[in-house]
């Protein structure tokens, strides 16, 4: 199925549409994102990201009309 992945990296963000199984594990998603960004396929994010850039990131999964994964840094701060 087509899944929209929203990727954020150091204040930059972009969307990447990919066909894959929605049950794929987090590490595979992170690897797909890293490869897509490095290949310049994610508009809005400069391709020069380091190796394992998303290793400590979190994947949020939304299943609606359009399945969406959000690849984001941790958000521990509110106060």
């Amino acid at each position, binding site marked *: 199925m087509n899944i929209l992945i929203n990727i954020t990296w150091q204040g*930059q963000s972009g969307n990447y549409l990919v066909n894959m199984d929605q049950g794929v594990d987090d590490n595979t998603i992170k690897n797909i994102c890293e490869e897509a960004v490095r290949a310049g396929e994610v508009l809005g994010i400069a391709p020069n990201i380091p190796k394992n850039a998303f290793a400590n990131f979190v994947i949020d999964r*939304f299943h609606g009309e359009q399945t969406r994964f*959000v690849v984001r*840094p941790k*958000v*521990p701060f*509110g106060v």
Partner: protein
Amino acid sequence: MKIVFCGGGALGSHALFLARDLEHELAVVDFDRVETKNLASQWFVKQMVGKNKATALKMQLLNFYDVKLQDCAIKLTSLNVDTLLSGAGLVVECFDNAESRRIIQDYIRSKQKPCVHAGLAANGEFGVVRWDEHFTIDEEGSPGQATCEGRGFLPLILRVSSSLVASIQFFLADKPQVNWNISPRNAESF
């Protein structure tokens, strides 16, 4: 409806500033005190330094806008969470630590109360607004990790706070739940 804000810091204080015209009962829970350094990133005036944050927000909303706010100047724990949140029709969670977030999430899920969360990443690079069913509690990083407490983060803090209040408005209007991804360059709702 009573709307209880948990946390009156960067996100909570600005969200309350923006929520002041909601025609609902407002309350805030925060045990912390206003420090001088907070003036850079939180909605407090310098006369409030030293006061409890919940009490300071109550005074500011009353003095500036004649808006009433119930202040709960205590630390939310598993022992008092029912007392603090049982009357809430909506819980707005803006805490800065995983332990308090977990207490709230456990409580609102057991009571099936609606809850919306907001959080910021380190260095002001990203923020989220999430309804509880989609919210993942992120552990704090290592001690000394970069935060959003310094100068230069207000634009992002205000974007996250205003998106949070927009989600509250949609909820109050019985519209579908709205989640947000917010970066310094983009804000996207879905």
